[in-house]
């Protein structure tokens, strides 16, 4: 099997995490992958400011990015109609990998969730997946983002129906943390039309 190869040279990447040390590590890992244009910010207000002035190719946020949190920030970016970054890949970095947390990230419009602590392999593989796997976008009254059709239950083979689909109730936080492979499965289910 041939390993994926991605070219990150000249891609403009934004890392947003309140921890300068973690941010530096992610920055270093991306440099190792060949990325040359990386910007770091520490809070979601700064994210919104830089997005107003610059176009990015990939956004990497912490889910707990102060003060709004990465989920609200992702949602805001996706919903802002005049934002030229609204379709950019958004990868959320999270240490909370319980299933409900991953579902919330999906529903906010994230392309992927990367479990913290981050390893070079997990980051490279998720970037490769986003880069090499085409994914449709959905523009609906209550959602804008990568296709997450797996959220809708109750129709055969995940094909077609949207109008009147029942939303899945998200339970209170419970259950064990998911491994990165399980997190990926929740996302890959999107392409398979099941969840």
């Amino acid at each position, binding site marked *: 099997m041939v390993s994926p190869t*991605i*070219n990150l*040279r000249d891609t403009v990447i934004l890392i947003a995490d309140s921890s300068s040390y973690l941010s530096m590590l992610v920055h270093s890992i991306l440099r190792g992958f060949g990325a040359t244009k990386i910007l770091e910010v520490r809070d979601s207000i700064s994210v919104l400011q830089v997005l107003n002035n610059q176009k990015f*190719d990939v956004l990497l946020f912490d889910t707990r990015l102060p003060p709004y949190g990465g989920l609200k920030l992702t949602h805001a970016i996706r919903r802002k109609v005049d934002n030229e970054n609204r379709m950019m*890949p958004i990868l959320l970095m999270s240490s909370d990998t319980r299933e409900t947390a991953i579902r919330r990230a999906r529903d906010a419009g994230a392309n992927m969730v990367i479990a913290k602590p981050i*390893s070079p392999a997990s980051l490279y593989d998720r970037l490769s997946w986003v880069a090499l796997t085409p994914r*449709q976008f*959905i523009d609906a009254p209550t959602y804008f983002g990568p296709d997450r059709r797996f959220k809708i239950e109750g129709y055969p083979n995940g094909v077609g129906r949207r109008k009147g689909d029942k939303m899945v109730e998200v339970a209170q936080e419970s259950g064990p943390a998911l491994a990165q492979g399980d997190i990926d499965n929740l996302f890959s289910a999107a392409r398979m039309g099941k969840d």
Partner: protein
Amino acid sequence: MGETDDRVRIFPVETRFQQLARRPGGIPRDKALEQAQSKIDEAKPAFDDWLNQQLEALVGAVKRAQTASADAEWVKTADRYCRQLRDVGSTMDFELLTFIAGSLSEMLEAIIAGAECDMESIQCHIDALLLARQKSYRGVKPEQVPELISGLRRVVEQVSTLPP
């Protein structure tokens, strides 16, 4: 497409990231991981200093909790330091440190959510963190110290129970 809701639009997207990433001349995965690991290794000498600073700050936050003027913010401060330790420990080969910091963070977040604060259990975790930061524990996995891990798990299970 099979869509029946005309308020929903489904469309293909090819982002600039996808276009750029697919260009020839990229770094193959194995080489990219090797280079990334080298970059992480370059950061390791400074990690010890950072780790000591974080632990000192965490210990300081917990000590403040025991003073008469302590306010509720100490838990959030301690939790923030804990999460930072947890989030980078494994990347820097301190997997045990990540586990202990994660366990303490779980307990602190339960306290923030209303669970009773048990300083003895917190101190127990801090002692474990001070042990795990030693270079001799670099590369040690939690399963290699089962007694320590099961002890911490018991503490967390008892302490993290929220009041009814």
